């Protein structure tokens, strides 16, 4: 009898990120960093690679790189060296990219990543600074070089600062990979090192993917490209892992390759392999002096680190009594967290969390507005929640008010006033209740006889008669009292 050995397939994933560093000017010259401007409007002899032009290090980029490293618990090198990575490509004006090789600014460090199977510690291998290339634009086709009739180059991007962050192959699943990216994004945003918006290309990612051999050693890895959104990252990795597994199950061997993920067809393709391996001939950049960091400088940057997302999340749970989920939502975006804290300072923090992480976020998402741009200022939100808390308006009326002020930016009180949304006082409400009882004698009788279910109907009638300007709880109370049940 043939027994087929069952094999478990354990993914091994390492990620390599490139994040735009949030500086005003480029990495090695004074040109502005601007995306979306007319082509070749932010250039100079340095970023055009003109003869004789020399690079000068952007100190702010170094600060931000080091701060990002510190935020991940990295060790900051006392001495860091820029190196030239030599290769020819039309988008690389000097014929080399100034990067870092043997002595990066940061090494070590980690990100703790929560997954459905518990927290995974993903170690950071290194963080270094480099310059971005220019952008090739191929004309005459859909934008690919192959088959194009011509190529144009936009040097606005040439020399803009990038941070490369490489993880160890510690990531056990596509889900954990996605979460790693999410956490990294949060950290970079919190530190102000990068805007890190994957959709805008401010955070780009490549993955090394393999399946662990039965003896526990690493399998052959492939490199997966074009996974430039959180969703595609997870799906692309799942797809590539499935492909590798199918190869292995068919008795084949995974080949070391570079794969390209096509999210539309949910397919992975082998990119055209190079004829020979590129030798980048790295050597220390002789135009730049080594960076030397003193302990005092590093400590000064450390002291300037803001509260990191994870610490903030824990504090929100502790300080405001929020659920992990709400705390997570509110701290996922720095602006949102700051907005929340302003509101929670004045009103019940839990109510504030409900309104902000629920109703307000829904409106923001629907309208595609950023929290920083909303007309519902923290002051407006405080006022609105206050109106509910003091019983002036019902929660359902308040939702309408929020929707109105989201559009108009008016004050909540003004809307309540104008629309007559204030809740009725107890006397007025009693009158309405009496009317409803008189108009529905059968139902009232059934309530008196103990049929609690019917009370909901009567409450509904009262609410209808008051056009919602009544507190449901109060209505129930009055009804119960009148009907003596």
């Amino acid at each position, binding site marked *: 009898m043939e027994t087929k050995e069952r094999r478990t397939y354990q993914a091994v994933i390492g990620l390599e990120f490139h994040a735009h560093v949030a500086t005003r000017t480029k990495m090695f010259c004074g040109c502005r960093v601007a995306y979306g401007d007319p082509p070749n409007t932010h250039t100079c*002899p340095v970023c*055009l*690679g*003109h*003869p*004789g*032009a*020399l*690079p*000068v*290090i952007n100190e702010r980029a170094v600060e931000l790189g080091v701060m990002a490293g510190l935020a991940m618990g990295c060790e900051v090198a006392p001495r860091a060296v820029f190196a*030239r990575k*030599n290769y*020819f490509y*039309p988008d690389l*004006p*000097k*014929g*080399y990219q100034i990067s870092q090789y043997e002595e990066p600014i940061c090494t070590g460090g980690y990100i703790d990543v929560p997954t459905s199977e518990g927290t995974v510690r993903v170690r950071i291998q290194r963080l270094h600074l480099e310059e971005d290339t220019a952008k090739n634009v191929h004309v005459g086709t859909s934008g690919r070089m192959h088959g194009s009739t011509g*190529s144009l*180059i936009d040097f606005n991007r040439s020399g803009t600062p990038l941070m490369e962050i490489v993880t160890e192959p510690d990531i056990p699943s596509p889900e954990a990979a996605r979460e790693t990216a999410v956490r990294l994004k949060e950290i970079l945003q919190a530190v102000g090192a990068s805007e890190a918006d994957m959709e805008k290309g401010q955070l780009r990612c490549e993955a090394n993917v393999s399946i662990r051999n039965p003896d526990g050693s690493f399998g052959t890895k492939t490199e997966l490209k074009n996974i430039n959104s959180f969703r595609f990252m997870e799906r692309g990795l799942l797809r590539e892992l499935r492909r590798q597994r199918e190869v292995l199950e068919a008795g084949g061997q995974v080949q070391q390759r570079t794969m390209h993920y096509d999210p539309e067809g949910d397919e992975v393709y082998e990119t055209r392999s190079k004829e020979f391996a590129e*030798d980048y*001939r*790295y*050597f220390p950049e*002789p*135009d*730049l*002096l080594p960076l030397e960091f003193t302990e005092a400088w590093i400590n000064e940057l450390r002291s300037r680190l803001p509260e990191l997302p994870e610490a903030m999340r824990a504090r929100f749970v502790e300080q405001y009594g929020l659920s992990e989920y709400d705390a997570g939502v509110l701290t996922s975006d720095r602006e949102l967290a700051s907005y929340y804290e302003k509101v929670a300072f004045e009103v019940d923090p839990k109510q504030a969390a409900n309104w902000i992480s629920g109703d307000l976020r829904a409106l923001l998402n629907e309208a595609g507005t950023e929290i920083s741009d909303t007309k519902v200022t923290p002051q407006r939100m405080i006022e609105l929640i206050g109106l509910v808390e003091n019983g002036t308006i019902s929660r359902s009326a308040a939702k309408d008010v929020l929707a109105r002020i989201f559009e108009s930016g008016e004050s909540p009180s003004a809307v309540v006033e104008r629309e007559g949304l204030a809740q009725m006082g107890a006397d007025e409400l009693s009158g309405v209740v009496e009317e409803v009882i008189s108009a529905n004698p059968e139902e009232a009788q059934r309530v008196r006889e103990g049929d609690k279910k019917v009370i909901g109907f009567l409450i509904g009638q009262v609410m209808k008669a008051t056009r919602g300007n009544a507190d449901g709880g109060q209505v129930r109370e009055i009804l119960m009292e009148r009907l003596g049940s």
Partner: protein
Amino acid sequence: MAGLLELTAYELAQKIRSREVSAQEAAEAANERVEAVEPEVKAFITTTPELTLARAAEVDARNGNLKPWDGVPLAVKDVLSTRGVRTTCGSRILENFEPLYDASALVNFGENLVMVGKANMDEFAMGSSTENSAYGPTRNPWDLSRVPGGSSGGSAAAVAAGEGWWALGTDTGGSVRQPAALCGIVGLKPTYGRVSRHGLVAFASSLDQVGPMTRDVRDAALLLQAVAGHDPHDSTSANVEVPDYLSELEGGVSGLRIGLVGEMMGEGIDPGVREVVERIAGELEEAGASVGEAHLPHQEYALPAYYIIAPAEVSSNLARFDGVRYGLRVPAEGVHEMYRRTREEGFGDEAKRRIMLGTYALSTGYYEAYYGQAQKVRTKIIEDFRSAFSQFDLLLSPTAPTVAFEVGAKVDDPLAMYYQDVCSIPANLAGIPAISVPGGLSEGLPVGVQLMGDHFTEPLILRAARAVEEVSGFEYEMKP
């Protein structure tokens, strides 16, 4: 105007400042001289007679506040970026390239720089005879059948022939000093970082330095004064105060400890050259210096280390000449073929040879054996100098092992050509300043003696060089 041509740059500058002579008169004299001798000497790739006059007129129009060097016509090596004036680096690949900006050294000199033209050079400053220029060789004004040295051979010949009063060259392994020696003029390579490299089209970034090439030592001091200084555009430029280079010139050598470098006086150095250096050593001793024998034990490794480091850097520095954005482009099917053909046609043999050497030296698997090892040698050489300077204030040696050689004599023997820089390379590897000053004649041709000092000791070097000038009895003489 012949009288004007007899003046040194310093003397001319004084007359211009006192309005005794106008800058335009000087410019006209320079232009006339260029017209007269350029067909034979061929010191320039591009002459700029109209610009020369226009700038001189601007100088004359300025009301007072002239700097002590303003208005004196200058030849600029064609490796320094000049806005709107083509800058070829002696290469076909930059034949029609007009830079967008001026080199910082020229900016430091000041506005209205009266430029005579862009001086010929070995392609991208690689060579010791100016025969590697895509624009033909320059001739030595002392003997038109001979080379002027290189790579700043055009600058040296221009000064020797009176085509302008002074010149800027660049020195990566001796390219200011060796042609200065061969043409009987003064050439100074300052401390690495003393003059900004911004706008100096890089050959070997860790070695390149702009330097004055002049009729005498005082002119060298004045021109250094004009171009030196910290530059925020060059991270390797030194933020060290620029002293007054003229104030100590006449201080003499009394009490100075001068070391004659033993390793630079032996085999391979022409006896005639050695004789001049020995004679100067003796004269300096008589003038009050104490002269002893100094040793640089790793000297024999300097040349090999240089021929790893410089090509490695140049292989990377010349990568930008790819036909994509500027310079020569040879159209071809596909970008890689375009690169190949552009570089094939655009670069000369020596440039290609060094690109290949450097590419090899940086390759995976060879890096440690070549580039890594060469850097270790460089450290040893720095230590040698440190140790020598603990015993001596200055080191003395020949600048070049021979006098000017015949055009064509070494073109087919790269190693013999490389050997021209055997005495000058160590200063570049260590980043220290060194000067070549004429010490006398051998076979009727000028011999340069070299003085090397510790970092930022240019005032001391200039002072000693001035003393050499005094004892040698050699005086600038316009040729041919």
